[in-house]
């Protein structure tokens, strides 16, 4: 099973919970942070909606 490693959002009131949350000021910063984190964590960045990216770890589960 895939695992959520981190969230990046521009609307911090929308998110809460166990994974680390990164707040971005605008869309450009959101994409940049997602890009950086994808390379750093080796986890795929997926866009859930316009203001929220998920970093998902598939290395441990089956893909």
């Amino acid at each position, binding site marked *: 099973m895939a695992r959520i490693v981190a969230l990046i959002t521009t609307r911090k009131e929308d998110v809460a919970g166990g994974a680390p949350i990164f707040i971005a000021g605008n869309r450009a910063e959101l*994409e940049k942070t*997602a*890009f950086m984190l*994808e390379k*750093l964590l*080796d986890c*795929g*960045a997926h866009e859930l909606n316009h203001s929220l990216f*998920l970093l998902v770890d*598939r290395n441990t589960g089956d893909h």
Partner: protein
Amino acid sequence: MIWHWMHTHRDLTGVLLGTLFGLGARLILMRSDYRQYPAYPHGRIVHIALGLIAAALGSVAVPSLYHKNYTAITFLSLAAQQFREVRNMERTTLNAIDKMELVPRGAAYIEGIAVAFEGRNYLAIFAALITSMTSIIFPWWTGLAAGFLSLLVVFRFMRGKTIRHIADVQTAPIRFDGHNMYVGDVYLMNVGLKENREIIEKRGIGIVITPKNGNARVTIANLGQRQAILYDVSTRLGVYRDTGEPLLIPLGKLALDTGQLALVTLPREYDPRMAIAAVESVPLLEAAVRMPVEANRQGEGRADHG
């Protein structure tokens, strides 16, 4: 002179011919093909040596049995034991290597290769046995004929089925609907980053595999078979991928309603025709082949199952 010697030393001639043809059979089965395995001299030497042993065991068993040394049959069981070890050896090696591959082979493919290596040694024994038996019982030169015949049989055995036999392979456009990636009409995954989407659009080749019948549908749905396809395509065309790029990955998903398999591949060489050829010549894995159509037909009107 030599002919006379061969007539008088029939056992030895048989053993020699048998060993020769057995080893020949093993060598035929060891083309280093596009799967690039075994690719290195040492791997090859291991298999040639084992092939020689297999051939020698097969051919020596015949004269012993012929002279009523029936315990010689235990030789062959010893050989079987040896070659089960070969399977283990291959499995262990390939599993160890697989962790270091950008696109792994997957367990089913490894198991298939390991079994093939074991089986090839038995084919070498078979060729040796037939050759040596014929040349000991009949005039020695009939062994030559039997040897060539057994090589033909071995050659025939080597040809397993490939994807081409069970499905049609075509390219299909990769398109993005926002951040969702589709190949043809099949949804594959969500790609969040624009950079990745651009790379996939530019370098990716979308392929759709359409199964020809119900059996084929089950076979290509198998995850091991799917991974084998991705691995073979990546080996033949290279792969545009590195660590830290988790979404630049060759991927396959089923269209559940039609049973089609949609693939996205990221080859180093952009050549759609080659990609299709690569997919078509992927061997069908023994672990993936199912025959539900036949099974259901046989099962009709037969409630119990032994």
